[in-house]
């Protein structure tokens, strides 16, 4: 069993979603504790990748492929955990990520998602051109800590404000931290629209979330 978890960990480090898929299926088929497989295999692997990235030893494609592999493993094991009525254990936090309404640029958002995954967060990526209301509905559904909204165009930045306005209007502002990001955004803009957090790069966003959720 221990061997299998080590293999899972290694497959995450290698960013090999096929092997992660096979091994996760094996966990289910052989009725091995899926919570242990997540904690001892998947999460241990992604932690290593996060550390290696911080140390400058791996590149972005490595992190993103590991995050993808992680998604495959969780996609198989999480339903099993739910079926058995077990608890997955605490993640560092939950973040709903999307690109705002009117904007379809998603590279920055995808990188941010991978970095949050690599840092041990649960990421719910809801895609591009997302209405304020849909950000909030998803955040409520999954019990998110953070709503992360991306915008690349100066003409779509205002949609980030709409999310905050929507939360205020529905008395939900205290329930979620709103993070904004994207090329034309800035700390000054985040302050102006009342966002809780802004970061220029994906790893800075993770560091910010770490600080904010630790409070």
């Amino acid at each position: 069993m221990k061997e299998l978890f080590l293999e899972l960990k290694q497959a995450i480090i290698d960013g090999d979603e096929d092997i992660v898929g096979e091994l996760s299926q094996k966990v289910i088929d052989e009725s091995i504790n899926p919570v242990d497989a997540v904690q001892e295999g998947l999460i241990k692997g992604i932690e290593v990748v996060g550390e290696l990235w911080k140390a400058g030893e791996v590149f972005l494609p490595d992190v993103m492929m590991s995050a993808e592999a992680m998604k495959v493993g969780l996609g198989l094991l999480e339903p099993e955990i739910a079926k058995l009525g077990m608890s997955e254990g605490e993640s560092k936090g939950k973040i709903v990520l999307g690109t705002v309404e009117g904007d379809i640029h998603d590279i920055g958002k995808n990188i941010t998602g991978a970095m949050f995954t690599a840092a041990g967060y649960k990421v719910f990526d809801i895609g591009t051109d997302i209405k304020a209301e849909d950000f909030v509905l998803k955040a409520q559904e999954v019990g998110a800590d953070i709503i992360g909204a991306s915008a690349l165009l100066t003409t779509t930045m205002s949609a980030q404000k709409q999310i905050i306005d929507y939360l205020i209007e529905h008395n939900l502002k205290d329930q979620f931290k709103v993070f904004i990001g994207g090329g034309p955004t800035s700390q000054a803009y985040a302050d102006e629209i009342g966002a809780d957090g802004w970061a220029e790069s994906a790893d800075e966003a993770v560091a910010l979330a770490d600080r904010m959720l630790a409070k």
Partner: protein
Amino acid sequence: MLPKYNVLTEEQVLIIHNESIKILEEIGMDFEYEPALKVFRAQGLKVEGNRVHFTREFIEGKIKLAPAEFTLHARNPEHNLVCGGENIIYMPGYGAPFIQLADGTRRKSTMQDYENIVKLAGASKNLHMTGGTVAEPQDIPDEIRHLKMIYSSIKNSDKCFMGSAEGRERAQDSIEMAGLLFGGKDVIKEKPVLISLINSLTPLKFDERMLGALMAYAEAGQAVVVASLVMAGSTGPAALVGTLALQNAEVLAGIALAQSINPGTPVVYGSTSALSDMRTGSLSIGSPETALFISASAQIARYYGVPSRSGGGLNDSKIVDAQAGYESMMTLMAASVTGINFVLHTAGILQYFMAISYEKFMMDDEMAGMLLHYLKGFNFDEDGLAYDAIAKVGPGGHFLTQKHTRRNHKKEFRTPQLSDRAAFDAWSKEKLDTNQRAHKQWQEVLANYVPPALDENIDKKLLEFIAQRS
């Protein structure tokens, strides 16, 4: 004029062309705009949902309809520009949301910045047109920003400028305003006055905003740059040739759409492909790979017989420092010596397109002047050979008191505008670096600039149009 140098063999260009055709035939491209799909259906292409599958025959036939060169008309005919052939057109940076200040801080750009940069470009001896969206005026509401920008471009300079590419309606407004300036839409249909920047959404898509603008301009006979920015490694493959094939497929499809709408529409083959930094994923434009993309694009456009566009003074530096200088010179020089015709982002860019800096603008203006001089190449007439002067001085003399020297240096040597050639002691009195000298210089240029007068009647009509559209 120096001959343009090639970075690919003829066979390699053909390989890239064939790869692009394969992409367009077998994978196809998404066009998220029903009117564009309608055009392709009418042309007999296979359209499934938003996906258009092209054929070799269609693409190769349409690209032949695009003119090899065209004249872009300016308010002052002395500033008319021929786009294509051996010509090179320099202009300011495009679309930056921030202004980087000389003291190292950064702020949002405003309408005042837009106006200032149009004026600096208007005053420049080296920039041929004033460009478009030279700063994103974030203090103006989005809905009327394009109207204010076009007006400022018309009012503050008589050089050629660019139209809005923010969807069909704003393109239409740009055309209306250009019509008011040049005496009617039928006049400008025959002689293009606007050129606009239509970008693909890599990989293999065009969005509604850009397609709407492309179609409006093509219908009105105005020029479009169809450009692709592949970020190799993220929005494109981590391979230079594959990236070129992908870029080429997108640009060919856009040009084919313009030619389908209005055969003979003036188009420019555009590339601003660059890298994704593999540590952070961020765009990286001041790289040798970008210079290779620029160089190859000039050559690929020559193969198709259409004018080319690339970036100019590109760099990833945050401030006006040595990195800003050496990266910008590499890409601007690559564009200039390989035969790019339309050099967007010649002046002002910092931080991979995120910021414009006035100081960087002056530095790039100097580089543009240096390169224009370099491109002139050598003078082989009698004055250029200077045999008489050499004979007169003979062994051991000097040339400083020769009439030939006094006359000819003004023809053959360029005097720097910004670079400091003083001796160390003279320089030491003020110890100004490039950033500091440029900071003083742009303020002087701006203070001394007088915008060319605009006909009062036209001015009134433009203001009325803006009021009515606001």
